[in-house]
């Protein structure tokens, strides 16, 4: 199968099995290794990317679903790491080991695009599919609030 996918704004043609997980295509075929493999079962969120702006877990998304659509990975969130979330992530030193953080950022970016000033409950609901075994959740929430222009702690 030949799939045409716009990846981070660049048209790509992939000659791969249509049921190949999108994560495989991104990492092993296109060399975009920012998106991580965690569980392979859509349970941890490390592989989160955007498909036409919607959060999908790329480890369970077949390439055929992305055919003719737009995929955004952590490499394409901004060309220079200047997304408000990325800046807040750096300023607050959010990551510990960092493995889950690309997925965390992609989910957070989708959240802020849909809800520019989310409540803590909305943050927790939207980020519930992204696990962090280092337990950086309080800093993640604070960074999302900071990126949204809100106080880092709920007032």
């Amino acid at each position: 199968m030949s799939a045409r996918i716009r990846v981070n704004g660049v048209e790509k043609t992939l000659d791969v099995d249509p049921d190949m997980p999108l994560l495989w295509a991104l990492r092993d075929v296109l060399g975009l290794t920012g998106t991580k493999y965690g569980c392979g079962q859509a349970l941890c969120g490390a592989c989160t990317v955007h498909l036409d702006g919607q959060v999908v877990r790329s480890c369970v998304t077949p390439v055929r679903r992305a055919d003719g659509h737009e995929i955004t990975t952590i490499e394409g969130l901004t060309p220079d790491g200047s997304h408000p979330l990325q800046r807040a992530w750096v300023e607050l030193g959010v990551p510990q080991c960092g493995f889950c953080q690309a997925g965390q950022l992609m989910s957070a970016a989708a959240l802020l695009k849909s809800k520019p000033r989310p409540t803590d409950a909305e943050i927790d609901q939207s980020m519930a599919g992204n696990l962090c075994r280092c337990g950086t959740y309080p800093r993640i929430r604070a960074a999302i609030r900071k990126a949204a222009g809100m106080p880092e702690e709920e007032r």
Partner: protein
Amino acid sequence: MPSPRVAVHPTSFIALTLALPLAVALGGCGPSTSLEPTAPAPPLRQVGPHELRVPADFEPIADVKQRSRALFLEVSRVLTHPRCINCHPNGDVPHQGMSLALHDPPALRGPDDHGVVGMECTGCHQDRNLELARVPGAPKWALAPIEMAWVGKTAHAICEQLKDPKRNGGKTLDEIAHHNGHDELVAWGFYPGADREPAPGTQAQLGALTEAWVKSGAECPPEGANQ
């Protein structure tokens, strides 16, 4: 002296568990006095827990209203199976598994029954089952609207719900029968993938039973009747 032990053959047990509630159902849904004479229900063909009866099995029930109620009880064996009710929750969280556990990872209904931003149903669920990852999938994967909640409902309540266009997606009864017999998401219940127990019978049987129920007047079994 120890009490004598009575052996009950498994098929006899199945017959009893199916026949007793059915007898209650066939008694009618009239006033609670329930002294109106009703013909004794003829025994139905025995089926196992993973099978469905077919419409012809209900032909011996002469009273058409009784037959209609019995047909719906058979339909409700599918509708109340975890493969179906798990996505017809009476709250904002889908269920999963045979024990109706709350969905994990935590997922919510969201504003349009498709999840919340970042946790949309189709962020994980694809248009078909993923056998290696074990993630179930089918076209149109989403929660049923809250007015179509089935968890905790009796066969009687679900029946009345299905007949109410305000709570059935604006469908006619014929459309309900067609939906049960042909809808792709309904079909998933019979082919759930991985090691999940499918709903009993086949989708074709469900469609035929629903159609027979509609044609027989779409009577609802009384409260207290079970499959």
